[in-house]
């Protein structure tokens, strides 16, 4: 499946896939890292508006990108999470390391 990205003034927005599992994760990780490095991204936004499902593979994707961004420098946030995804973020503790809108 093809993933979608928006790049604007050092800010990269990743439109997350409908189902974020291990199968979807590997390509997404590689593409995101390539963009983060090539365009000196300072702000990374995961947009979950089109995502209906995510399991712990998605946690790995997000934590991994936080590392790629460098904990000291860049800022990582997640937006447009549905109730289910909020639950996943809370159960995993992800909302403590990524900025969210809830």
């Amino acid at each position, binding site marked *: 499946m093809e993933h979608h990205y928006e790049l604007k003034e050092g800010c990269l927005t990743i439109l997350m896939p409908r189902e974020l599992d291990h199968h979807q994760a590997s390509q997404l990780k590689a593409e995101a890292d390539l963009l983060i490095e090539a365009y000196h991204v300072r702000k990374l936004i995961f947009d979950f508006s089109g995502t209906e499902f995510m*399991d*712990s593979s998605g*946690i*790995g994707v997000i934590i991994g990108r936080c590392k790629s961004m460098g904990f000291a420098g860049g800022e990582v946030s997640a937006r447009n999470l549905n109730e289910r995804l909020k639950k996943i973020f809370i159960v995993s503790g992800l909302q403590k390391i990524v900025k969210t809108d809830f």
Partner: protein
Amino acid sequence: MQSKNEMKIEFDARSVNEGFARLAVAAFIAGQNPTLDEISDIKTAVSEAVTNAIIHGYDNPGEKVALSCRIEGNEVEIIVEDTGRGIADVKKAMEPFFTTKPELERSGMGFAFMEAFMDTVEVDSAPGRGTRVIMRKKIGIREGS
């Protein structure tokens, strides 16, 4: 009235089948009148167990993962089984954030998610013998009903 229903499927240990496995279970339990939350909980748990079997159980994607689901009354029992590598220390494997595949950015949250979203999780495994994960959850019980 106690209803009883069972199904079993077997598929290749390929990541593309993770989505198939959780949808198959969701479709099978749909008749039990589960809430949307219960369906999501079960789909997540199935996805975790099947992903573990695919990533950790085997080196060869041609190997098989077996998934069975049994409904009895208001309880769903799901068994995910591989005949692969097996787990030497199950207790350790179930600790949150423990992973043997950090290079794949595995979060180590697989078993923690299964335990968070199901009522019970049992793991039967030994090196060289494969792994069997048995998960149970009561569904279709709404407040006030």
